[in-house]
């Protein structure tokens, strides 16, 4: 096939969008949009990295901070949530061997997350709305630097994403517990108890142990979804709260810090936000590692019952670690700093280390394995968390936090390595393993491009995190600017690694487009001609 033919019809013309079921289309839509938003994030990251070296003439300073505000939100909600929601809406029914409870609700999740992300990104782009620190929305609300209207649209966008997240949670739990038409009545309560870990917990104290009704990866998705639900409630509530401040301002009242205690609010919001970083991400990732290890090795999971119990521990731990974000808040009670901030947070080293070990041990039991694309990206993902979690545990220490908080250390070796290497490489592994299932046997255009993607992403991500970390140890703050080039050497090196990431992403994107063709990409977004609730076409 010629280049043009491949570009239009995909590799060997194997991908035919008209053969896709509604479920396959739904999942692929999530993945495509998630990857487009990931492209946004990579480009924004590069622009900011260059701006840190030398302010760019086409970006104003308020615009820089607007990009800084939108960047993590687009990355987490627009990209990661999209890919994760899409993958799990497919995998949960796939593993439960029954259809998704509601494809319609799944489509609404897709629409709300996609549109909501665009709205808050666009509100930031137009109005330069930028008061947030990563995902944290500080109170009192500042109206001197930021537009009330920009903020109102920004909140609307976030609220839509949260509504989509709520629909996702409902769909997941209903899929686990419902009885499909024509089936024998399913034991809803027992399924729910198994998914949430209540059965496993009761088994610890009874002689007649009940069997686990849901597969382990589904239990991970269910437990992670509990954190999604709690986080959604906290962010929605906070959005309304910030909106109250804005409406008061429009009406001529300044609530300042008289309405809500700033520290109490900070505790509340960080509790909710931590359900993402220290909750659903870790639980979802552990469950995904287990699923990938079983699929790649074809063997049962090593220490399955311990792994199941650890997922529950991880969920409970995620509700109690928020105080590590407040170690530099001097009014925060010391007992909370030590117990929640240090000691319970250290549990994440144990639960994540345990997931790391179980995954490797499962793979080991099946050696020799072929170095497939899913395996290499899974190993990259494991390495990412092995690097990033200890970096986080170090900063969650009363002594070290005094000299690390809000430096580039936090956002480099911890956040970026965890997200880019740990999380994203795990997601790439899922994409590579699901690709033939979701596309009814389409073929990758180029293995060379897969390898370029892998090495550029791995080296670029670790390198960028490392150089940001070095700058942080030398005193460079995050969310700041150094106009005299104080840390230029580190930022130039980080930008070089960022370029590798960009090359990796472009290789991947080009490879995917050439694999399914432009016609195929468009076809993913047209309604399915097959009227079925089945996940894949009946053979």
């Amino acid at each position, binding site marked *: 096939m010629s280049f043009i033919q491949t570009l239009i019809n995909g590799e060997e013309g194997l991908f035919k969008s008209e053969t896709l079921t509604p479920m396959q289309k739904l999942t692929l839509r999530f993945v495509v949009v998630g990857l487009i938003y990931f492209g946004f994030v990579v480009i924004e990251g590069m622009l900011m990295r260059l701006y840190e070296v030398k302010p760019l003439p086409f970006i104003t300073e308020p615009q820089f901070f607007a990009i800084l505000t939108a960047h993590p939100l687009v990355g987490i909600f627009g990209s990661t949530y999209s890919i994760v929601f899409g993958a799990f809406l497919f995998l949960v029914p796939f593993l439960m061997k029954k259809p998704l409870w509601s494809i319609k609700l799944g489509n609404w999740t897709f629409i709300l997350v996609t549109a909501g992300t665009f709205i808050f990104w666009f509100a930031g782009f137009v109005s330069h709305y930028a008061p947030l620190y990563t995902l944290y929305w500080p109170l009192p609300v500042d109206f001197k630097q930021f537009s009330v209207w920009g903020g109102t649209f920004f909140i609307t966008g976030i609220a839509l994403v949260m509504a989509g997240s709520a629909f996702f949670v409902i769909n997941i739990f209903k899929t686990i517990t419902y009885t499909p038409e024509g089936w024998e009545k399913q034991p809803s309560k027992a399924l729910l108890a198994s998914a949430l870990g209540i059965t496993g917990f009761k088994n610890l104290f009874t002689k007649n142990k009940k069997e686990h009704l849901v597969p382990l990866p589904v239990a991970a998705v269910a437990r992670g979804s509990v954190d999604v639900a709690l986080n959604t409630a906290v962010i929605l509530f906070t959005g309304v709260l910030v909106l109250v401040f804005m409406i008061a301002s429009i009406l001529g009242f300044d609530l300042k810090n008289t309405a809500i205690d700033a520290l109490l609010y900070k505790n509340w919001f960080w509790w909710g936000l931590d359900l993402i970083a220290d909750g659903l991400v870790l639980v979802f990732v552990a469950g995904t590692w287990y699923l990938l290890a079983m699929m790649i090795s074809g063997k049962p999971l090593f220490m399955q019952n311990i792994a199941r119990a650890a997922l529950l521990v991880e969920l409970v731990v995620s509700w109690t670690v928020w105080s590590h974000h407040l170690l530099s808040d001097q009014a925060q009670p010391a007992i909370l700093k030590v117990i929640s901030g240090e000691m319970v947070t250290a549990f994440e080293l144990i639960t994540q280390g345990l997931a790391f070990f179980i995954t490797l041990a499962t793979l080991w039991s099946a050696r*020799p394995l072929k170095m497939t694309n899913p395996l290499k990206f899974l190993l990259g993902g494991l390495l990412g968390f092995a690097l990033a979690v200890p970096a986080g545990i170090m900063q969650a220490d009363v002594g070290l936090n005094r000299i690390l908080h809000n430096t580039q250390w936090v956002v480099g070796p911890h956040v970026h390595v965890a997200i880019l290497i740990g999380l994203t490489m795990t997601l790439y592994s899922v994409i590579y393993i699901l690709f033939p299932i979701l596309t009814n046997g389409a073929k990758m255009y180029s293995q060379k491009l897969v390898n370029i993607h892998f090495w550029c992403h791995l080296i670029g991500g670790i390198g960028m995190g490392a150089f940001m970390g070095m700058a942080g140890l030398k005193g460079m703050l995050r*969310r700041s600017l150094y106009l005299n080039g*104080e840390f230029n050497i580190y930022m130039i090196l980080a930008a070089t690694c960022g370029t590798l990431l960009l090359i990796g992403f472009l290789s991947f994107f080009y490879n995917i487009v050439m694999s399914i063709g432009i016609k195929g990409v468009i076809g993913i977004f047209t309604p399915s001609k097959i009227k079925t609730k089945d996940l894949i076409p009946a053979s």
Partner: protein
Amino acid sequence: MVDSKMVLTGQTLAYTFYCIVIILLVAWFSIKVTGKGKGLAVKPAIFYTFVAFLTVLGVSLHLITYNTIPWAEMDLNRSDYKPDKTFVITVKDHKFIMPSEKLVINVDDKVLFDVQSEDLTYGFGLFRQDNSMMFQMQVVPGHRNDLLWHFDREGVYSIRSTEYSGPQGVFMILKDVVQVIPTTSAN
């Protein structure tokens, strides 16, 4: 006394060493798992030993830092200490309002920085002349934000807000306003 710079050097060495070990371990695993050999089940004893190792590591990190980083204990129990000097600093409209033009401190003084915000959440950090950080804390409105620090050597430091408070927060820098001088030449 151990300086915060020395603590960071120790941390850099420890973390770099760990990174090299874990990267080599994953590389070794990748080669072995795809190389010749037979799949063997890992003994549960190895697993439980690993879990015990992680538990000891997680807890001991904080015990070690509490007993070796000099400011950790002082920070958690700062109400038990009597400061040699106290500086009350107010922050408003993205500006630090200082009690005097320069803050002069004697070597070996324990100094309490009591920083109050009248509008937004800010940060308060002391930075050396090479831009490295000496320490920082958050400045939350409506609350007491106080930090006790023992200055054991001479130096000149800048104050900078360490928390994002919008684009204007970037310029919250007071260059070389803290001077630590020998006791003999002090006021």
